[in-house]
Structure formats: structure tokens, C-alpha cells
């Protein structure tokens, strides 16, 4: 397995490059916020930006665009952070470098439940999407983990990925089956399905916050135990970790975060993979640092991807889910090519 060795002792409380990384992330964060506010099908100038942010009496079109983009950016940040942490949690729980909600098929599970909600129960508010998506994500995650961990060696990357791909294939057949007789649903769903943060609103954000807090708390709380889990179940038990409980808790946190993000923004893939790998590459495998920093990295990556999508798709926009797939899939391929086959 990659990157799961213990970090060197002398670095335990302060990973190498930690200070520099924090500064770098802070700068990137600011830059991505600026970019997200300024770029788009309509470019915003500096004064217009200030007007929109601080002079609520200015009612120009540009100012209202800026205000909309503020919402979008905050929403995007929250989604990115949630997906980043979710990826870090899932990778730690499975001791598997390529665990990501999208690869494990969890997104498709959320999709199916949402589509069924739209089609059979006339559900249209984000409030109700959330619970459906979380339920769908949970059930799928449990199912995929179960199928993937059968047999010797537990949940190896290849087994897990195949279980995920197979489950995705099945679920998407079901999604299509539900949609085909219902043109209206198809229309409503196809935009949700691509994954976009453009639809974010203050309502979404206030709905998101409690879930985000719960998920982050679980993640931070379970991080030290996950560090022990990285050494294998036997060693972790020897170190006094209740492996079963911690697995359950951490997976719950991971699924909760990606379920909510999926419900509100649609299935956005590969953020968990990208953020976590980038962070681990820089500071090493200590989960206690990887988790919070993945949140930042996820937020930054998703925001930049969103900006890219807006610029590339101009005058309309390229949905962010498409952009992340195009950045993330090559990374998956790269990891696979580099990995020792023994680890797969």
C-alpha cells in the first residue's frame, strides 16, 4: 500500500514543510476566491468587485453578479472541503490509496435515490434531496465495502474499485430505467447529474453547515486512531484502538460528507483523490494533518476547477463535475501506473 508507512519520529508533531504549506495554501485560497469572484462569462473589474462586496446600495448588474458569485464561492468551498475530507477518511479506513466517493460508486447510489425521489415522490427541495442522497450514499458504501472486502487480503484497491464500478453500472441502469418514461425528470436530472456548484444558494449553505460540522468533528476525532489503523488491524488493536468502532465512525463521517455534497451539488468526482494525494505528497501520511489540509486543498481545487469550467465553457459554463473528472482520472491512472502491483 502506498504512503502508509509511519512518518519519521522527529516529524510527528510538525511535518516537514508544514509552515510553508500553510502559507502556500492561504495564498492559493485567497487567489482562488478572487478568481472565482472575478472570472466568468462576465468579467468583473476591481471597483465593481468592491461595490458588490461592500456597498450594498449599489444596484448595478455587475454588483449583483458579484453577490451571486460570493454565494457560489462559499458553496464551492464547502463542497470541496467536504469531498476532500471524505476522500481522506475513506482512504484511511480502507487503507487504500484510490478510495474516492466517485470511484467507489457512492455518488451513483446518491443519484439513484435522488432520481427515485424526483420521480416517485415529487420531491424538489434540496432539504429532502439531502436525506435521500445520504441514505443512497450510505447504502451503496456499505454494499461496496462488503463486496470488496470479501475474500483474502481484505479490501484491496482493485477489488474495491471493481466492486464500485460494477455497482455503479447497475445503479446507473436503474437510474436510466426510472428516467426513461419521465421526460420531465430526465430534464431535471441531467443537470444535477453532471455536478455543478452554480445552483448554490444561501439556503443550501445553511443546510450544509450542520452536516459539515458533524463530519469534520468526526474526522478530527478519529484521526489519531486512523493513524494507528494505517499500520494494520493487528497492530492497531495492539495499540489499544477499537478497530471496528473507529472504522464505522470514520466511514460514517466520510459518507455523510460526500452524501451531503452530492445531494446539493450533484455527483462531483475525484476531489477526494486529488486533494488527499496532493497533501500526502507534500507533508507525508500523518492523518491528523492530512484531514484538515485535505479540506483546504479540496476547497481550493474545486474552486479553481469551477473557475476553469466557467472560462472554458464561456459564454455558458462547463460543469465542474466534468472538469474534475478530466483532472482526476489522469491522476488515478498515474497512481495506478506508479503503484507496485503487489499493492493492487
Amino acid at each position, binding site marked *: 500500500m502506498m504512503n502508509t508507512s509511519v512518518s519519521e519520529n522527529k516529524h510527528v508533531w510538525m511535518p516537514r514543510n508544514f509552515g510553508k504549506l500553510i502559507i502556500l495554501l492561504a495564498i492559493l485560497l485567497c487567489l482562488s476566491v478572487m478568481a472565482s469572484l472575478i472570472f466568468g462569462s462576465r468579467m468583473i473589474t476591481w471597483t465593481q468587485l468592491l461595490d458588490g462586496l461592500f456597498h450594498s446600495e449599489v444596484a448595478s448588474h455587475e454588483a449583483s453578479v458579484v453577490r451571486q458569485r460570493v454565494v457560489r464561492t462559499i458553496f464551492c468551498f464547502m463542497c470541496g472541503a467536504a469531498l476532500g475530507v471524505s476522500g481522506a477518511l475513506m482512504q484511511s479506513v480502507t487503507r487504500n490509496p*484510490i478510495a474516492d466517493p*466517485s*470511484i467507489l460508486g457512492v455518488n451513483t447510489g446518491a443519484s439513484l435515490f435522488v432520481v427515485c425521489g424526483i420521480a416517485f415522490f415529487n420531491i424538489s427541495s434540496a432539504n429532502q434531496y439531502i436525506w435521500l442522497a445520504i441514505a443512497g450514499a450510505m447504502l451503496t458504501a456499505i454494499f461496496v465495502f462488503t*463486496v*470488496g*472486502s*470479501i*475474500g*483474502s*487480503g481484505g479490501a*484491496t*484497491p*482493485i*477489488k474495491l*474499485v*471493481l*466492486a464500485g*464500478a*460494477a*455497482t455503479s*453500472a*447497475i445503479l*446507473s*441502469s*436503474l437510474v*436510466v*430505467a426510472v428516467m*426513461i*418514461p419521465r421526460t420531465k425528470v*430526465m*430534464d431535471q436530472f*441531467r*443537470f444535477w*447529474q*453532471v455536478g455543478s456548484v452554480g445552483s448554490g444558494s444561501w439556503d443550501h449553505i445553511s443546510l450544509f453547515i450542520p452536516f459539515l460540522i458533524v463530519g469534520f468533528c468526526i474526522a478530527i476525532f478519529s484521526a489519531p486512531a486512523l493513524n494507528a489503523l494505517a499500520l494494520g488491524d493487528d497492530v492497531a488493536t495492539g495499540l489499544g484502538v477499537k478497530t471496528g468502532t473507529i472504522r464505522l465512525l470514520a466511514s460514517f463521517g466520510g459518507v455523510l460528507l460526500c452524501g451531503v455534497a452530492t445531494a446539493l451539488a450533484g455527483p462531483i*468526482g*475525484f476531489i477526494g483523490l486529488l486533494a488527499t494525494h496532493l497533501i500526502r505528497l507534500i507533508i507525508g501520511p500523518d492523518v491528523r494533518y492530512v484531514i484538515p489540509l485535505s479540506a483546504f486543498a479540496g476547497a481550493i481545487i474545486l474552486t479553481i476547477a469551477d473557475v476553469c469550467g466557467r472560462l472554458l465553457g464561456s459564454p455558458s459554463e*462547463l*460543469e465542474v*463535475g*466534468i472538469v474534475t*473528472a*478530466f483532472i*482526476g*482520472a*489522469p491522476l*488515478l*491512472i498515474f497512481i*495506478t*501506473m506508479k*503503484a507496485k*502491483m503487489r499493492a*493492487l
Partner: protein
Amino acid sequence: MNETMMSIYNSRMKRKRRFLLMTCLLAVISIVLMGLMLMLGNTFYPVKDVVSVLLGEDVKGASFAIGTIRLPRMIVGLFAGFAFGAGGYIFQTMLRNPLANPNVIGITAGSSAAAVFCIIVLHASNALVSIASVVGGLLTAIVIFILSKGSSFSIGRLILIGIGIQAMLNAFISYLMVIGNTHDLPSAMRWLSGSLNGAKMENLYPLIIAVLICTPIVLFLASRLEILELGELAATSLGVAPNKTRLVLLLSSVLMIALATAAAGPIAFVAFLAGPIAKKIVGVGFSNIVPAGLIGVILVLAADLIGQFAFDTRYPVGVITGIIGAPYLIYLLIRINRKGDL
């Protein structure tokens, strides 16, 4: 003849009889389904009418319904089913893993993406769509094989890379679907799940020709494929050139699968299910290319009949095969994991 020889001979003959018997049975079922495809529809036509239409006689009403609607639908189901079944079996055998089939590793996604691009962006002619889907499928296959070459070839790596490529291709298809016009959607939906709707005879010739040319080629190589199953080293020492054989098998099966995808969309799971089901039914020890192809035909035609007539809404064939195939896929995954082959 000594005793050992007799017993080996007898048990082999027994299995050969079962193989032949079951293959014939599969052929008969395929023919029955083909007949049903022609007889059933808005109006039911008895066998007599169907036969006379096929013989070129003019039967009032039936000639149009059968000749221009049902016959092309049946033909595309027949050839696409065979192509998916046989092609999928070849992939699975060659890569020694039932999960390594064109659906899972993204080759059909490559064909779909190329075809959808031609339809939505270029508004291209059907001929161009066929060519593009073959090129798309072949390119995807080549890219996957090159990337998974590495220091040592491994099936696990190939599958993971295939899944990565597929994720990108699917994102691309989703994007095309979003920018496409609403009135293009139903026809584009075919590229997500596969459908036999609206098949026209004149669009089917590439597929028919490919299947008729490639089938003899792969049958000729069938015994080599069996030897390849023993691994590269054993194959070389038995006088099979692994790379050359693999290349020809790969090209022929990708050609068939890509054209089938162009004609009917990536009908879910047929390429994946046909091989293992054929193995279950006809047994192991003889080349299962033809039985797997026949299973493919049966799956596609039966699923299409179910999709057309079993529900209030008409479902495209891919949705039905997707749902029928699901439990089997899960079962197979669980079994493979239990055995610990991966």
C-alpha cells in the same frame, strides 16, 4: 488402446457431446427469439405471414411492419448480440479475468464518446458515426494497453487504468449531453444504455460485414486463445506467439464491439455476461466463442422483447440487460473475491 486412454477418450467425448448439444440448443433458442422478434409488435403476424414476407411475397400490412421495422431491429439485435458476446468472451479469456471486458475497461465508452461527438457536435452522417466509433474504440484500447504496459504487464493495472479512462470518457459524454439539444436527447440516451430502436437496414452493413469477416478469424485463432490462457510463458513454449496472436484477436474483437456499439449503443453487461454463462452451460474444454456469441444474441433479443412488451413503457434493451445482469455481476464479483484471484 489401454484403459487410461479409453477413459480419457470417453470422458472427452462425453463433454464434446454436451458441448455440441448445448450449442445447438442455444442456436435453436436464438432462432425462436428471432422469429418472435418478427412476429410480435403492434399487430401480431403468424409464422406463415412472416415466412412469406421473408420470401419476398407482398403481404398486406405485414410487408411494411416486418420488412422495414421488425427485420432491421431483429438483425441489429442478432449481430450486435453476437459481436458483444463473442468479443466479450475473447477479452475475458485473453486477459484471464471475467471482469476485464470491454464494458468495464472503457472500450465501449470510447466508441460511445466518439459516436455521440459525431452526432451532437458534427451532425455527421451514419457512415462517419460508424467509422468514428471504431476509431474511438480502437484508440481507447490502444491507450489502455500502452499505459498498462509498465515494467510488467498486469491485469489489475489494466483494469484500473481502464476505469480511469472510462471516467474521463463518461465525463465527456455527460458534457455532450448537456450541450446537446433537448430533441436530440432521446436518441442520445441510446449511447448511455443501448437500444435497438429505429434501426435501419442501410446503417447495419458495417456491423454485418465486420461480424461475418471477424468471426472466422477468431475461430481460426480459437485453439491459440486456449493456449494463451495458460500464460505467456507456457504459450510461447507451446509454439504460440503471444503478442501477434493477442494483437489479431484484439483488433478483431474491438472491431466487432465498436461497430455493434455504433449500431445499438453499449448494451449493458452483454459482453460481460455471455462468457461466464456460456461456460456454465456448455462446459469448459472447447472454445466457447460461438456459444458465447449465441448467449449474447439470446440476451439481447430476449431483453429487447421484455423491454418492448412486458411493461407499460417501452424500455430500451440496455436498461433491461443492465437490470437482469446486475445480480449475476454481483454474484461473480463475490465469487472472484472469495477465490482471491485479484
